């Protein structure tokens, strides 16, 4: 008998196990105001030592330029907003578009990356990327040391269930949840930022209701 059949037989031989309806009595939404949700998001991200700024749509370029101030080279996904890409290239910064895909060595020699994002969760300060052309493949937001994420304020949800409902629309996409820069607490539970992934996380929240 093959291993699969044998394992399935063993499970069935364990007998009938009662099933239960899954009660989902936990919070799925919130009555918090939009401004509170944004404020919570900022506070949670800053708690993870991320640098956060809130700008109107017209201010994204300047914010990207500022967030990249110490970078000399930047990688961007092929589908990134053109004006954002231009902003990344200000002050003589070299912009590398990940199309065709850069080699691992090239990525390792790149200082920063700018990506868009799918959705955020204010309750836990989490930002979700699902690999679409404005976010790129997973490796580009991993190898460079600084990750600048642009997040639309309207895409910030309060709770995890609200965010999962959005990514669930395309469950097969490779998805990365990010909550702060890379960190370890393995030595005496002291949090140290940046072990293997990006050591700096910078978030630009775009608020459509703000005027320049």
């Amino acid at each position, binding site marked *: 008998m093959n291993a699969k059949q044998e394992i399935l037989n063993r499970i069935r031989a364990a007998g009938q196990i009662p*099933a239960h309806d899954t009660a989902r009595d936990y919070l799925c939404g919130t009555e918090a105001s939009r401004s509170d949700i944004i404020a919570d998001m900022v506070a949670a991200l800053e708690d993870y030592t991320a640098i956060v700024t809130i700008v109107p749509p017209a201010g994204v370029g300047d914010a990207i330029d500022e967030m990249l101030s110490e970078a000399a080279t930047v990688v961007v996904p092929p589908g990134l907003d053109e004006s954002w890409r231009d902003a990344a290239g200000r002050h003589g910064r070299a912009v590398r578009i990940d199309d065709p895909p850069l080699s691992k060595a090239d990525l390792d020699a790149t200082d920063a990356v700018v990506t868009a994002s799918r959705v955020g969760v204010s309750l836990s300060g989490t930002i979700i990327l699902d690999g679409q052309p404005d976010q790129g493949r997973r490796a580009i937001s991993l190898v460079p040391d600084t990750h600048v994420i642009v997040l639309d304020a309207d895409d910030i949800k309060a709770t995890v269930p609200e965010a999962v409902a959005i990514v669930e629309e395309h469950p097969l996409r490779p998805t990365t949840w990010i909550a702060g820069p890379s960190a*370890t607490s393995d030595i005496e539970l002291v949090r140290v930022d940046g072990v293997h992934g990006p050591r700096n996380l910078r978030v630009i929240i775009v608020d459509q209701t703000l005027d320049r």
Partner: protein
Amino acid sequence: MLDKLKELGSSIGLNPADWSEQDIEEQKLGWYPGHPTPDDPLRWGRTFPEGARETLQNTQMRRNLGYATGKIRTKRNTRVEELPDWEELREAGSLIKRNTLAHLPELLETFEQKVTERGGIVHWARDAAEANEIAYSIIAAKGVDEVVKVKSMATQEINLNSYLEERGIEAWETDLAEMIVQLSHDMPSHIVVPAIHRNRSEVKAIFEARMEGRPRFATNEPRELAMAARAHLRKKFLSAKVAISGANLGVAETGTLAVYESEGNGRMCLTLPETLITVMGIEKIVPSYRDIEVFSQLLPRSATGERMNPYTSFWTGVTEGDGPQEFHLILLDNGRTNVMKDEVGREALKCIRCAACMNICPVYRVSGGHAYNSVYPGPIGAILTPQLLNATDRKDPATSLPFASTLCGACYDVCPVKINIPEILVHLRHTITEANRGGLPNAWDVAMKGTSSVMSSGKKMERAGNAMKAGRLAAGRDRKIGHIPLPVAKEWTGTRDVPAPPATSFRTWWNDEHEETK
């Protein structure tokens, strides 16, 4: 250094000849020698009392552990209190996992089908040997002699690293704590923080002695040590062709797998190599994609006391142009179907490996993980290990584990999926006791028989009560009776102080109080 210490020892009246081998080894290494890799990671060959006797002697380990578990408990409590719906989330988590067990064959078959549809290759492994063989044959076919690894309990459980090493393949652990454990030729002592028994000075000594290039550190600051690990592993991430991971959960409905991590080493392994091999216990399945919303709230808060862990990766089979283009999934039984047979004990399979039960357990917090002689230590280990091994014989060291508990219930209170660990501990004690009935009576049986004769008679009880006064003399001024080198008493007092008996027994007191009414 060692000579100086020996001199110092002699000057204060300690005889170096009395030092244990471990103490001498510690002086030479700069860290307390760890637990060497055993043949069976679920059963290291000793009972819990024997393991605990050894670990309790290590005062440094007890200090490190007390500090770390205290800190993690406080963080967990703060983060759990933030959520008004924590109890509802626990209930949902518990029911989802029960439903997983209720429908496991169908869920596994759907899961396999979905992973396959997305270009993944699914393998089934009845036991550790089979899982190791499958992993090795995939790696061998790639012609590589090293692989990178994401921290994974499933691969610890099957001893994959040793298996590969014997066949000339080096498996590099890339999680900082796992790397500390690997470099010091040690075993993990905690499920989430495997090097919890080490402090920064020991880590510095381990890195200086065992890391490639023998680095020197100016300080023992965690930041400096972590950055050395970063530089050390970056080359491996960029060059590795094959990676191995475990999985925190697998979604049957979509074939999606998840790894929750902090350092980014997980993302490196899951994204950069050409081939990915994932080893997953069959109980890790959840039915629907939506279930992610429950475990993504329960797991990080329970495990590391964070609102969310820095990185979580979800992938489904193979995605063109993004990540590994060859994906193998090994579904592992290795005793899980034994656990399913027991209707009380099977609740242990709901475990999501957050280790909250360890951090709160008064027994784990002093004895440390190595005392449990299994890669699954603490309260969950005490119920999981004997069940995975199907151990009921009293001669099997694993059967000592359900007895290694105060039954205080704290582990049940913190468990994010509501595993009633104390109930299962008592249930397993009963099972083990029943399985060992018959045969020659042991010292306990004889002692209990003797006790029942005394307890069944008022007169005898009174005489015994008076005799207890002698115990008061034995106790001395601290009112505690320590080790008594007599059969039976030895087994009890070897690990506990017994309070001195009262100056007068209840019967004597009653008689004195009521003398006039007699």
